[in-house]
């Protein structure tokens, strides 16, 4: 693939938006930051991909109009946590096909607690009609039972998940854009109030308001102050098992071999991972599907490789510490991986970062997520 990422931008990642701030303004501010970082003018942008739960009744074209963009290429994505990877894939192909020359890809929301509750209760017909009336209160109940299954199947203890959460918080300390940056102790984790057994509050993403954006273009448009980031390969899977499994595998298990083969590298070549972390259990599930966990030993990988930060996972702090700003969740990892590969992740830079894997996961149909994708990104020389 010849298209590259040449800029990133973020806005918000706050619990309490100030007067005048909204999902729309965070989306705008992230876009403007990304375009500036890419060294482009507003008028250079000829493609827009946008994902947001909260822009209704506006659509992508309404946003293009409000954002003052005249475009050749437009996409609105509805794949939640998997939207970032989906939009990245479409944008790369859009640039390579010549449909557009500079596409800004953005996700963001300012839903707030009530907005989030309303969104998750009416997520789709199956959830609205068959699950919400039970008082399931969003995806926590479903992933609490999935987490129980994973603990049983792989011999994982709560402390193992705790090590992951603590490590992500330690990474977040180096990210000025993260919502929570204060170090977390195992005592605090183990003594935190249960939200939905066995998930405690630190296992559940904090709702934030904000937006994340990237610019996809060609390498010749990349500004001199940083190197472009190439997408070596990108693979996705949608509804791979009709919700009839245990959710401990994702569709990545079906496409991981193709991903590494297309990328022309091996899992062990990758220096960092940005894995969609709606819950710690899903980070382990995706890492395992991506063949990054030796010997299926999820507990050890959580405790040692992630916990001791031997293998950098979610260096932005992930959604668990940086915050989940609705549809920005699908973009947060991509922005972070690009910054790491550009060697501009000040305060948390992984030395000599050259290759990264990024994943997105989301859209609970009934029992767990059905959309998943991953990309291998490379620092272009």
């Amino acid at each position: 693939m010849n298209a590259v990422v040449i800029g990133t931008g973020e806005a918000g990642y706050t619990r309490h938006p100030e007067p005048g701030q909204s999902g729309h303004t965070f989306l705008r501010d992230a876009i403007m930051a990304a375009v500036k970082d890419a060294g482009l003018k507003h008028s250079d942008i000829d493609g827009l991909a946008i994902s947001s739960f909260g822009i209704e009744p506006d659509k992508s074209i309404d946003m293009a109009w409000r954002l003052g963009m005249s475009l050749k290429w437009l996409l609105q994505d509805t794949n939640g946590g998997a939207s970032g990877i989906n939009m990245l894939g479409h944008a790369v192909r859009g640039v390579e096909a010549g449909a557009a020359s500079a596409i800004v890809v953005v996700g963001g929301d300012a839903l707030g607690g009530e907005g989030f509750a309303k969104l998750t209760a009416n997520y789709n017909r199956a959830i609205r009609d068959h699950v919400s009336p039970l008082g399931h209160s969003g995806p926590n109940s479903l992933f609490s039972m999935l987490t129980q299954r994973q603990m049983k199947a792989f011999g994982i203890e709560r402390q193992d998940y705790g090590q992951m959460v603590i490590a992500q918080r330690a990474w977040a300390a180096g990210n000025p854009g993260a919502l929570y940056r204060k170090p977390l102790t195992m005592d605090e984790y183990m003594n935190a109030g249960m939200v939905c057994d066995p998930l405690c509050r630190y296992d559940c993403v904090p709702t934030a308001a904000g937006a994340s954006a990237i610019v996809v273009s060609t390498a010749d448009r990349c500004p001199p102050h940083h190197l472009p980031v190439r997408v070596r390969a990108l693979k996705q899977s949608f509804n791979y098992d009709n919700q009839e499994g245990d959710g401990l595998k994702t569709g990545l298990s079906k496409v991981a071999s193709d991903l590494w083969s297309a990328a022309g590298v091996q899992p062990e070549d990758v220096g960092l991972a940005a894995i969609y972390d709606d819950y710690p259990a899903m980070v382990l599930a995706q890492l395992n599907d991506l063949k990054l966990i030796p010997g299926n030993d999820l507990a050890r990988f959580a405790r040692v490789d992630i916990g001791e930060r031997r293998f950098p996972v979610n260096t932005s702090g992930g959604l668990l510490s940086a915050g989940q700003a609705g549809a920005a969740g699908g973009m947060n990892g991509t922005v972070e991986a690009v910054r790491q590969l550009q060697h501009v992740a000040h305060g948390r830079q992984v030395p000599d970062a050259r290759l990264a894997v990024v994943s997105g996961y989301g859209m609970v149909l009934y029992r767990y997520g059905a959309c998943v994708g991953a990309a291998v990104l490379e620092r272009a020389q």
Partner: protein
Amino acid sequence: MKPGLPLTRCADCGAGYFPARLICPRCGNANWRRDEVHDGVVEQTTIVRHAAGQTEWKPRHIASVRTADGQLIVAGLEEPLPEATKVKLFDNDGSPIARRNA
């Protein structure tokens, strides 16, 4: 609250589904007949202790139940039940409820 969980069953290959589908993923056909399943086994349970956007919230008990026909469903419990409890399934206006099989 009616006894039994409503299933849509493929009239061609016999596979049963909850929630209802439009096309059978097994055989690709769309000939459905209505059916019910009455029995199941609790596989996991959880307690929803907090809910986003709610200030007055009573903890709810929710279970993953495998029906006697093989579907994995999300069901509400009226009391905490241990794993492996055999249950009877009920339809509460679209929401599955599982009660201990007395």
